């Protein structure tokens, strides 16, 4: 059993929640870009979530989770001080930062929570970080202060213009790239984009003509997270890769998005049905 030592909703709409969990084995090695898998209880699924932070001394790992399906909705009802049954990791490879000087990090929605520790670590290493954070609207915006502290320049935008600039991240990424050219500044040597698959697909289209290497973090359906099930197969550069052990970071210009989008929706019907049967009264636990 693993104790939830801190729980905090990160936005007004309470769509995304932070959990700091006691897990010394994970805290010992976790790095930005990696993920963990948690399981709420005996009947629960194994659900992968990105590492949003860690405290090696306290022996805790932090995750920021959006309530989407049954398990994540149930997680949101777990109280501070309560326990979850399992958490394992760190899994996957850490995000590569070696040799980078100027990076644009783009986060979409809960993707900002995953992109945040990457930006933070890069910023601490002295890499120049521009952060573009996109949300649907003001009530789901997260990490306003944290993102500011983790970047040299922060662009916040919402689809409906209720917070920050109005528009999609693709537009602002293009603006930043063009501004570098117009002002004779060094171009980004890397774009890191994390968000919905469809957003990452369009961001890849933005950077492709400029030849800027673009890395995306994928979270396909998986079971074990150690290379065993092969459920997380993605096609990258024409080859089959396992996101759990070969990723989760991949070159966006090599990823077959068509197959990625279809595979992600495979259990949609089952998930939608399952998400309708959650009891809020039991605090994330099942009856009997």
């Amino acid at each position, binding site marked *: 059993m693993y104790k939830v030592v801190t729980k905090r909703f990160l936005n007004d709409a309470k769509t995304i929640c932070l959990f700091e969990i006691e897990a010394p*084995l*994970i805290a*010992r*090695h976790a790095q930005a870009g990696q993920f963990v898998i948690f*399981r709420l209880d005996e*009947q*629960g*699924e*194994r659900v992968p979530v990105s590492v949003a932070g860690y405290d090696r001394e306290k022996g805790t790992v932090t995750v920021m989770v959006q309530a989407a399906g*049954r*398990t994540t909705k149930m997680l949101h009802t777990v109280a501070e001080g309560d326990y979850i*049954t*399992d*958490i*394992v*990791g*760190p*899994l996957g490879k850490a995000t590569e930062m070696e040799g980078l000087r100027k990076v644009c990090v783009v986060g979409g929605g809960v993707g900002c929570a995953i992109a945040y520790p990457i930006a933070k670590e890069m910023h601490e290493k002295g890499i120049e970080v521009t952060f573009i954070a996109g949300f649907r609207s003001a009530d789901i915006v997260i990490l306003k202060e944290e993102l500011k502290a983790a970047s040299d320049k922060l662009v916040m935008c919402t689809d409906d213009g209720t917070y920050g600039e109005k528009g999609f991240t693709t537009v602002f990424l293009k603006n930043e790239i063009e501004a570098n050219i117009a002002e004779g500044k060094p171009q980004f040597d890397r774009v890191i984009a994390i968000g919905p698959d469809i957003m990452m697909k369009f961001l890849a289209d933005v950077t492709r003509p400029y030849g800027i290497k673009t890395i995306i973090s994928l979270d396909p359906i998986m*079971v*074990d997270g*150690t*290379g*065993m*099930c*092969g*459920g997380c*197969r*993605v*096609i990258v550069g024409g080859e*089959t890769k396992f996101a759990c*052990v070969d990723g989760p970071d991949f070159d966006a210009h090599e990823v077959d998005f068509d*197959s990625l989008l*279809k*595979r992600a929706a*495979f*259990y949609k019907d*089952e*998930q939608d049905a*399952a998400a309708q049967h959650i009891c809020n009264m039991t605090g994330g636990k099942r009856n009997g």
Partner: protein
Amino acid sequence: MANMKMEKNPMPEQDPIVRAGNFDEVALGYSAEAAIDEAKRCLNCREPRCRTGCPVSVRIPEFIAKVAEGDFDAAYEIITSTNSLPAVCGRVCPQEKQCESKCVRGIKGESVAIGRLERFVADYHMNKKKKAAVKAPESNGHRIAIVGSGPAGLTCAGDLRKLGYDVTIFEAFHKSGGVLVYGIPQFRLPKEIVAAEIENLQAMGVKIVNNAIVGKSETVDELFEDGFEAVFIGSGAGLPQFLHIPGENLLGVYSANELLTRVNLMKAYRDDYDTPIKRFGRVAVVGAGNVAMDAARVAKRLGAEHVFICYGIEFNLLNNPVAIHGGEDGHVTGIELVRQELGEPDEKGRRKPVAVEGSNWILDVDTVVIAIGTSPNPLIRNTTEGLTFTKKGGIVADEGGVTAREGVFAGGDAVTGSATVILAMGAGKAGAKSIDAYIKSKK
């Protein structure tokens, strides 16, 4: 007087029609009467050849003699003196290739049903209301780390603990048992049985840390830093192989590992578990080994209308998959096969199958399960210095599990690539012996 019946006492089983619709165990086990009757078929040979066929050297004629006397407790003591997992072995060992293949009764008629008797004794003990307390030997103060709680790791742990070592198993999954829980289906090896065997080991003092991935959560080097004096790697062969044919990433194509893990470990067949699984219609299983059969039987029990086994020379199908076809929505619609015929014999006299040109045909299916084997997981390989590896990724180790690195031992599928439970157990046993010798040599 020995029972000279030529045939084994039959194993009671669930009706085939009924069992195809449930996940309950197929074989139901001997009654005490049947067990005693069967045990009396053993001639108690002076030089028992059956023992030479057992990778964990179970004292077969001795335990069978006790069964014949009706002293099942004594029989259990004899079996567990060399075998930590009798209820598992009694179910999933290929006895027909091992102990039973050596039995003299098998020359004229059927061998003694050694496996069924082992299972009977183990189950008898497990079902006993009042059990004698498990003996936990006193610790000798030497700490040994074991990577993986599958058959190799559990056996190694049990043997070392019996010798007094302070043993900790590190297991990546939330449940212990390795392939015994994620791979072998419930109807062949009930998970309650595996859990009970593991509880026995824990009662003996074996410690298990779940959710610990050696190579990720901590490295082999860190285990030594943490004070372990030797490490046994029994991490198995978990990486599924694929065919590398077009269409392999379509929706509805599973590795056997994924299907089996979803169903066995994550219990997708039960309504009270959250794990999703698709309704299957027509399923093609590619492969012909034990895992392919398990996958096929699982698919049938999940309600598949038809399950086809492709690519199985054992089935004389002589069809080889060349592509998987899908519809607009990305779902599997069929598997394209090419017929094969046996070619000219090669220098060894083996007639290799060759594709018959233009014989391609499409079998309509909505699900394809790839069960063509697994290879060792690279997590340890990528994070451990000083080990050597085979081309296929297996750790190089001798018969005693000794690797190129001092203090590191290995056995089971992590060394050999996918093999059987009992061979892994034999390797765990050999590893324990080598570790004991190694620690004593250091003193």
